[in-house]
C-alpha cells in the first residue's frame, strides 16, 4: 500500500472521526499505540535473530521494514479500518447514556436500600455489556447477509 493510498485512508478516517465527534488527537493516539505495538514486535523478532550469522542482514531488513511499517500501521498490526470502526461501535454502545433500562434502574436507586444501590450499578453495567454481544457474530449479531 503506497503513501497515496494511506493518505486517502487517513483522510477518510478523519472525515468519519469528525462526523462522529472523535477528536483527531484520539485518532493519533490510536495510531501511536499501533506503532508502539508494532515496534515492540519487531524488536523482539530482531533480538531473537541476532545470534545468527545472517542476523545482521535480517536486522537491517527488519529495521527498514519497521520504518516502512511506521508509515503503514494498518498492514503491520493486522488491524484494518473496518476493525477500528467495529471497536468504535462497541465502545459507543458501552458508553451510551440514553438507555431506558439503565435510566429506569437509576431512577429506582434513591428508593432502595443501600445494599441494593450498589447492585443497581452492577446491573446497569451488565446491561451495557449485553449490548456488546449484539456486535459479535457468534451471538447472532452483526451478520452480513
Amino acid at each position, binding site marked *: 500500500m503506497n503513501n497515496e493510498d494511506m493518505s486517502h485512508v487517513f483522510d477518510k478516517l478523519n472525515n468519519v472521526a469528525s462526523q462522529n465527534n472523535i477528536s483527531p488527537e484520539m485518532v493519533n493516539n490510536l495510531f501511536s499505540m499501533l506503532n508502539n505495538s508494532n515496534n515492540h514486535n519487531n524488536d523482539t523478532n530482531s533480538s531473537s535473530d541476532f545470534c545468527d550469522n545472517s542476523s545482521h542482514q535480517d536486522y537491517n531488513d527488519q529495521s527498514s521494514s519497521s520504518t516502512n511499517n511506521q508509515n503503514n500501521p494498518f498492514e503491520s498490526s493486522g488491524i484494518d479500518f473496518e476493525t477500528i470502526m467495529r471497536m468504535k461501535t462497541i465502545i459507543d454502545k458501552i458508553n451510551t447514556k440514553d438507555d431506558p433500562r439503565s435510566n429506569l434502574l437509576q431512577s429506582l436507586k434513591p428508593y432502595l436500600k443501600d445494599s441494593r444501590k450498589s447492585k443497581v450499578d452492577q446491573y446497569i453495567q*451488565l446491561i451495557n455489556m449485553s449490548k456488546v454481544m449484539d456486535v459479535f457474530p457468534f451471538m447472532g449479531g452483526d451478520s452480513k447477509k
Partner: protein
Amino acid sequence: MIDNIYNEFTFGRNDNRFEIFGITLYFDDILLICLLLFLYNEGVKDQLLFISLIMLLLS
C-alpha cells in the same frame, strides 16, 4: 373475614415494612414487585430488564 385478613397484615409503625403470611416486605420490595407487575401488564418483553429487577428483589 376482613378481620382475619387484617390480622395477617402487620403494619410496622416504626419501620417501613409490613408482614404478610410470615413474609416481611420492605418498601423497596413492594416497589420492585409493583414495578414488575406493571411492566408485565404493559407487555414489556425485555427479558434482561426483568431478570435484573428480579435479581434486585431477591438480593
